[in-house]
């Protein structure tokens, strides 16, 4: 291909006239139609074929048109270069070409005076060129408003004045209504039309009508001078520039000096636009799972993060830590980014606190504990956290609450066999001191002697070492002699270890503080009952009967069905004492007061069995409703008294398959009794019957269904259990049944964090954190109502099987952060 062909590219071939006379009008025609390159080619060809002064003049005409067109297209450097070339090659034509070069330089520097001066007398073609230059190069409308080159009444100058005034107004404050009407005088073809669109876009931006702003920006021609501001305004709105992302992008954007752009964006947004841009980049980097890029953006974000409002910085950090963890990204880029922010040690401690919370959410209680411990130590040393008082006590209590509820789970997690081994490892320096839960609670109590901490401490030792629990309760009682709580514990503890004299002594002290306390009344009844039962076993029947007489006087003893139990004991003592007829009379007396004979048989039979005596008579075949009621009420009674209920297998089967006529109250009692007796199938069936209709106990039946399902073996049933328990907790909350809320939460907690976080609900899209919606609850209810067949329940085991594992090193995604956090120490 020839050089000419290459330069010609894809341009359509221009018909070459045969003679110089034909060629001149053709060249002028091409110039007037804007085809200056073709005109120049034709003129040069003519000059080459037949050189003459006329032909040279035509070439210069074509060059001049070409240079002016390049100026109109904003190609200042190219135009100046071409002008210099022409002036050198045709020295005789310098006087025509040099002014063009000068004009080119003036326009490039923003001086439009020369071309404005041409405007009043310019021919239409030249006028169009000048307007094109103005469209491209008018960088301040005041240049038009204040130019002396145009008369005052020139429409372009008037339009320039209107644009200048409105541009200053719209960027300085809220415009009065109707102010934009002044722009209506500017026609669409005017070089000021892009400015009109820009002013409308800025006005819309400030009144937060971003859609209208973008619509106006879209209409601005990309070659017009205001298009550079359009790109900036798009960034302020948070929209990418049209063509952004295309190879090459917008060449003009690259030409814009970024310093004033950043200054404007910073001034308009109060510094937040940069933050927004970086946040968008961070979101994009995280979406690509590009940890290095995300870390680099975090590094830029941290210094920009404003201190006001207060929630921004901690919320950003908490969200970032959580997202980083969820994406399972390598921690180093984040560490490097956070490490750069050395300005505030206090903020680094805050980051440590947020990291601990992140671990908690991830279910990594042990990692959370270590980070909390580091935070407490660092903050205390720095004086931002007092060493005593409510705040440190609250944190220490929180740390203690992180431990799994089941003590064996703690041992499993740490790979040890006993609490003593933990203590030993701590003493050897192999484990941080925070893993001794008892020590944490003792520190909390020392920091703030708060009843809540005391309760937690006693509960902790009660599950491990009752002697310690009693010692702590005794110490608290001595320090707070008017506090009933330690006395209640001491009564229970003494009763549990069979120290009835001590229990009664503590009961007396407690009754001196609050004689009406319901637990004390129950304790007194329980103690007298235990005493009576003990005396029957020891053969001291007269003393047992005296205890029973005293029990009869107690108010609670006559409430509910307790009197039947006491009557059964009295019958037993009388019979054992050799008074057979008296025993018979007692039984008849009870029977005359108790309509449900099945319940009588059940209670008396259970009492007799627990003392190794034959029941007085065989159970009568009763109606399903009577059987259900008997089991429900007897179950409730024995559970309240803490005594085992012996239920004949036949009765149990009859009840499980004949719940149709049972009242909601009895169904609920059966739910509770089933769990108490280790009979989840009964609970499952009773809960299913209760769920069949809506009523005030609906959440309780859902709770019972969930608790029964939690005892089933299959993972699917455990997932069902979780949905039932979560729905029950939600419904209980709405019904203000706080006991049920607590019970559901506790049952959910016992199912373990793994089930909660990795759970895929059979009822929908519930996850471990969201509260179920009414629609989801309705779906759960529908499912449970349809599932009548009980699942396969696990056979009761002899105890929990220990999983002995190697002690876990303190390792996880963010372990490497810990040395960094030491900076705050």
């Amino acid at each position, binding site marked *: 291909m020839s050089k000419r062909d290459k330069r010609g590219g894809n341009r359509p071939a221009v018909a070459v006239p045969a003679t110089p006379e034909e060629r001149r009008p053709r060249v002028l025609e091409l110039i007037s139609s804007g085809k200056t390159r073709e005109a120049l080619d034709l003129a040069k060809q003519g000059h080459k074929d037949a050189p003459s002064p006329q032909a040279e003049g035509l070439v210069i005409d074509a060059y001049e048109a070409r240079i002016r067109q390049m100026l109109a297209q904003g190609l200042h450097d190219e135009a100046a270069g071409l002008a210099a070339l022409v002036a050198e090659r045709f020295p005789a034509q310098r006087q025509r070409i040099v002014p063009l070069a000068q004009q080119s330089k003036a326009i490039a520097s923003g001086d439009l005076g020369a071309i404005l001066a041409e405007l009043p007398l310019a021919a239409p073609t030249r006028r169009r060129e000048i307007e094109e230059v103005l469209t491209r190069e008018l960088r301040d409308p005041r240049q038009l408003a204040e130019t002396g080159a145009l008369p005052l009444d020139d429409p372009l100058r008037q339009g320039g004045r209107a644009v200048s005034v409105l541009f200053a107004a719209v960027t300085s404050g809220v415009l009065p209504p109707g102010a934009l009407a002044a722009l209506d005088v500017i026609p669409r073809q005017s070089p000021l039309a892009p400015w009109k669109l820009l002013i409308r876009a800025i006005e819309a931006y*400030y009144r937060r009508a971003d859609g209208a702003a973008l619509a106006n920006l879209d209409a601005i021609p990309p070659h017009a001078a205001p298009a550079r501001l359009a790109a900036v305004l798009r960034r302020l709105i948070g929209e990418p520039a049209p063509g952004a992302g295309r190879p090459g992008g917008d060449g003009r954007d690259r030409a814009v000096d970024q310093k004033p752009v950043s200054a*404007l964006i910073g001034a308009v947004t*109060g510094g937040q636009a940069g933050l*927004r841009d970086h946040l968008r980049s961070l979101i994009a980097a995280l979406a690509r799972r590009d940890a290095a890029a995300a870390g680099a953006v975090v590094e830029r974000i941290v210094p920009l993060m404003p201190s006001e409002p207060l929630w921004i910085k901690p919320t950003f950090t*908490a969200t970032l830590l959580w997202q980083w963890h969820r994406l399972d990204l390598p921690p180093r880029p984040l560490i490097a980014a956070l490490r750069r922010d050395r300005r505030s040690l206090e903020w680094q401690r805050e980051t440590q606190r947020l990291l601990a919370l992140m671990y908690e959410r991830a279910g990594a209680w042990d990692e959370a504990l270590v980070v909390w411990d580091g935070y407490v130590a660092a903050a205390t040393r720095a004086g931002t956290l007092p060493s005593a008082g409510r705040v440190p006590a609250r944190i220490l209590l929180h740390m203690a609450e992180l431990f799994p509820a089941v003590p064996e789970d703690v041992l499993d997690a740490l790979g040890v066999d006993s609490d003593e081994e933990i203590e030993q490892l701590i003493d050897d320096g192999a484990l941080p001191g925070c893993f001794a839960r008892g020590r944490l609670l003792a520190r909390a109590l020392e920091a703030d002697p708060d009843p809540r901490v005391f309760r937690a401490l006693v509960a902790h030792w009660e599950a491990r070492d009752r002697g310690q629990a009693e010692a702590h309760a005794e110490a608290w009682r001595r320090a707070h002699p008017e506090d009933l709580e330690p006395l209640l514990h001491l009564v229970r503890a003494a009763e549990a270890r069979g120290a009835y004299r001590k229990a009664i002594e503590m009961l007396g002290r407690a009754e001196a503080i609050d004689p009406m306390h319901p637990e004390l009344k129950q304790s007194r009844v329980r103690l007298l009952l235990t005493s009576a039962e003990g005396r029957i076993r020891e053969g001291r029947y007269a003393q047992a009967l005296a205890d029973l007489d005293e029990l009869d006087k107690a108010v609670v003893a006559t409430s509910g069905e307790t009197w039947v139990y006491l009557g059964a004991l009295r019958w037993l003592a009388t019979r054992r004492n050799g008074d057979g007829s008296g025993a018979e009379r007692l039984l008849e007396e009870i029977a005359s007061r108790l309509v449900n004979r099945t319940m009588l048989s059940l209670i008396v039979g259970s009492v007799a069995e627990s003392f190794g005596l034959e029941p007085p008579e065989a159970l009568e075949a009763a109606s399903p409703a009577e059987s259900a009621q008997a089991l429900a009420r007897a179950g409730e009674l024995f559970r309240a008294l803490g005594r085992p209920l012996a239920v004949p297998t036949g009765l149990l089967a009859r009840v499980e398959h004949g719940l149709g006529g049972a009242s909601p109250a009895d169904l609920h009692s059966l739910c509770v009794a089933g769990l108490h007796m280790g009979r989840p199938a009964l609970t499952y069936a009773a809960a299913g019957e209760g769920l069949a209709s809506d009523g005030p106990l609906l959440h309780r039946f859902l709770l019972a269904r969930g608790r029964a399902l939690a005892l089933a073996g299959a993972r699917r049933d455990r997932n069902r259990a979780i949905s039932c328990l979560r729905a029950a907790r939600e419904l209980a909350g709405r019904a203000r049944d706080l006991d049920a809320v607590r019970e559901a939460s506790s049952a959910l907690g016992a199912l373990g964090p793994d089930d909660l976080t990795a759970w895929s609900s059979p009822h929908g899209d519930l996850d471990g954190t969201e509260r179920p919606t009414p629609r989801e609850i309705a779906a759960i209810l529908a499912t449970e109502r349809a599932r009548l067949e009980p699942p396969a329940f696990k056979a009761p085991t002899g105890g929990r099987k220990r999983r002995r594992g190697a002690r876990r090193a303190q390792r996880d995604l963010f372990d490497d952060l810990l040395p960094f956090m030491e900076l705050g120490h």
Partner: protein
Amino acid sequence: MLGVDATADDEQVRAAYLAAVRRSPPDRDPEGFRRIRDAYEAVRDEELRLALRLFGPAPLASLDALLEALPDERRHVGPGPWLDILRGGKP
């Protein structure tokens, strides 16, 4: 959301809550009112404020949510900074 600082007491929090409700009454701005109510419930008493200070804030569902929650300031700065961009920094 209520515009109270970390040391505000119950009375100041309550006053800020009522002022916010006056700006977004439930009948005219139910969504705004719900957010205000939630914010108030989270800091209503000293114990809740302490819990929030020690064990908050909860992470947002995504960083996009943070982007949406950032205050969107739009300050008028006069024509100068705008024209500076077109002038390429030249006066």
